[in-house]
């Protein structure tokens, strides 16, 4: 191995005045672009609905919204399949919906209803859609990264389907999570054992109230990938095409046994760290104007503009679809509100498999 080049700061990628225009979509299949657009709209609309329901006191559990960051999840999901193993965080509505998670089950879950994807036991921070490739999410920062590496190890032990076409482990996490030691331990494991593993860092420049410059000596997280000898890509995380393409390259390598990849998607959350407000809990040194500038990097508008410019859709198409999604989300929310809570017995019955009761004795 020869010395590598290690990035330090993000430069233009963290400059809110850059990257505001319509996306360059190149030869990306139009069908997927439309899917991606409306998938992002679904995430946006669903989270706006959740925000409203929090404001109205209908939702009580802590809700961390990814509004503004939709392109990261949707771009990554392009090259995932149901047998892959993605793990999320406290801020995973977007990941869950990006792989196709049920909107009904999302609203069921944030309302603590038995119809939720985790049967109402976990709330917003505990989503899962395993058959779609989303293993689960938890709010302890950094905690699922090593679990995803384990899922990648399992995929490698499985041996891949066609020769080497491994399923991949995927860890979604934020810039803050890279300050937990477990992130580095996990990177070293994946590199050392050459696992089919993808680390996806949504660098939204904040961990709770603190900007990355108050927490780390440089703003680019991919420098850690270099140190762990993990292949990396750094992209505008509000450009769903750039995210998908970078993810595609890293996933191809990983699936063919060439080892782990690290994707840094630079983005920005529009709301507070937790909760619905744009002006509360957003960050100690975050000014109102920052958000205004970042909103010009809106991942949805930029893709819509590209598709309209290319005559792939019209503004009217978009508005119609947006309204349809909005109605669908409202319906889901209504159904969830009407749904029952889990039985009281779930509290104790779910602590151990099979309610803690013995099964028939096994033979082997």
């Amino acid at each position, binding site marked *: 191995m020869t010395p590598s080049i290690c990035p330090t700061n993000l430069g233009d990628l963290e400059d809110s005045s850059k990257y505001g225009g319509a996306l360059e979509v190149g030869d990306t299949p139009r069908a997927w672009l439309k899917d991606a657009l409306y998938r992002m709209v679904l995430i946006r609309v669903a989270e706006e609905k959740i925000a409203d329901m929090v404001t109205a006191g209908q939702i009580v559990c802590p809700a961390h919204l990814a509004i503004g960051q939709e392109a990261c999840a949707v771009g990554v999901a392009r090259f995932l399949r149901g047998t892959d193993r993605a793990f999320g965080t406290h801020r995973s509505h977007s990941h869950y919906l990006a792989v196709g998670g049920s909107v009904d089950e999302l609203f069921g879950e944030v309302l603590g209803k038995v119809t939720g994807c985790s049967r109402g036991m976990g709330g917003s921070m505990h989503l899962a859609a395993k058959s779609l490739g989303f293993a689960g999410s938890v709010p302890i920062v950094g905690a699922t990264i090593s679990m995803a590496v384990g899922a990648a190890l399992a995929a490698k032990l499985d041996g891949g389907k066609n020769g080497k076409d491994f399923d991949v482990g995927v860890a979604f996490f934020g810039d803050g999570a890279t300050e937990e030691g477990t992130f580095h331990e996990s990177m070293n494991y994946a590199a050392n054992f050459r696992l089919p593993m993808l680390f996806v860092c949504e660098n939204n420049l904040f961990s709770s*109230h603190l900007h990355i410059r108050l927490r780390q000596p440089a703003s680019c997280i991919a420098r850690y990938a270099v140190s762990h000898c993990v292949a990396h890509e750094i992209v505008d995380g509000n450009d769903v095409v750039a995210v998908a393409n970078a993810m595609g390259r890293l996933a191809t390598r990983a699936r063919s046994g060439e080892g782990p990849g690290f994707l840094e998607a630079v983005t920005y959350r529009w709301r507070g760290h937790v909760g619905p407000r744009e002006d509360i809990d957003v960050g100690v040194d975050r000014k109102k104007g920052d958000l205004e500038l970042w909103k010009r990097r809106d991942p949805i508008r930029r893709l819509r503009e590209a598709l309209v410019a290319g005559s792939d859709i019209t503004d009217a198409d978009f508005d119609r679809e947006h309204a349809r999604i909005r109605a669908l989300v409202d319906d889901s929310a209504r159904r969830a509100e009407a749904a029952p809570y889990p039985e009281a017995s779930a509290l104790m019955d779910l602590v151990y498999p099979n309610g803690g009761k013995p099964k028939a004795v096994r033979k082997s």
Partner: protein
Amino acid sequence: MSQTLAYGSALREGFHHLLSKHPEVFVVGQGLWSPWYVGNSMTNLDKEFGLERVIDTPVSEDACTGLAIGAALYGYKPIVIHPRVDFMILATNQIVNQAAKWGHMLGGREYPAVTIRGIVNRGGQQGAQHSQSLHSWFAHVPGLKVVMPATALDARDLLIASALYEGPVVFFDDRWLYEDAEPYAPVRHLDLAAEGPKAIREGKDLTLVGAGWSTQQCMIAAKELETSGISAEVIDIRVLGPSDFSAVVASVRKTRRLLVVDAAWETCGLGGEIIANAVESLDLGTFLAKPKRLSIQAAPAPTSAPLETTYYSTVKAPNIVKTARDMLAKAK
């Protein structure tokens, strides 16, 4: 100066006192430059005392704690803030392997005078990873002082005593107590080594024992019991480790009935410890009823509203009242 002092403000007053009068004290942890991360317990301390002494940090519980232990060996008295006990779990190695043992294993020449504050922060449908109170774990480990104030004045004065103590202290406060107020009194200077459980309400029929939030539930229950003519003594544990439960024993010798309330899981927890200790220390004939403990059910915290209500109900005042009545009704 207000007439009453609430628990959250009392903590802030404790920090303010320490930072004002003790240049060797600094605070470090997550959320310290945020206006509400740790409730109202540290509001604006950063503005008043500067970012050098009120240090907000990266998300690195282990290093943050180790850093404080190291600084404590060099003349400082740092207080580490873990906004949730659940996150403090990531610092277990530093607390249990390093802070607790440093003095002993290096021959007693010095002890890290560090206070590690873990905030019990639960309810509100936050779920399994935002709900734990693992005070019993730390009480299990020799070398640690474990402090858990139940009242506003204790929150302030035991915080000060912890910070000024010469060795490592794990300090638990509970967000559910932040609004609880009591009449204002000026700072009492306590020597933590001399502090321990004490009776905060006198009674003769039954001893209720609590720690932190559960103490206040015991107080509410005691008042309720009084209306039906039952006189309950309440012992507030205050300091769990190293354990000295002689105040409990003395009380039970008098009341001859013991009910321990611990707002945490039961197995290998504080409730069992106190019962075992009482049984070992007293003649069994003392007991007019079997000693009993109330704990949180043996499950992770659920988020769903009705389940969450059930989950915490076992350690709340109504259930304490009911259990106490049963104990008085039953023969030995």
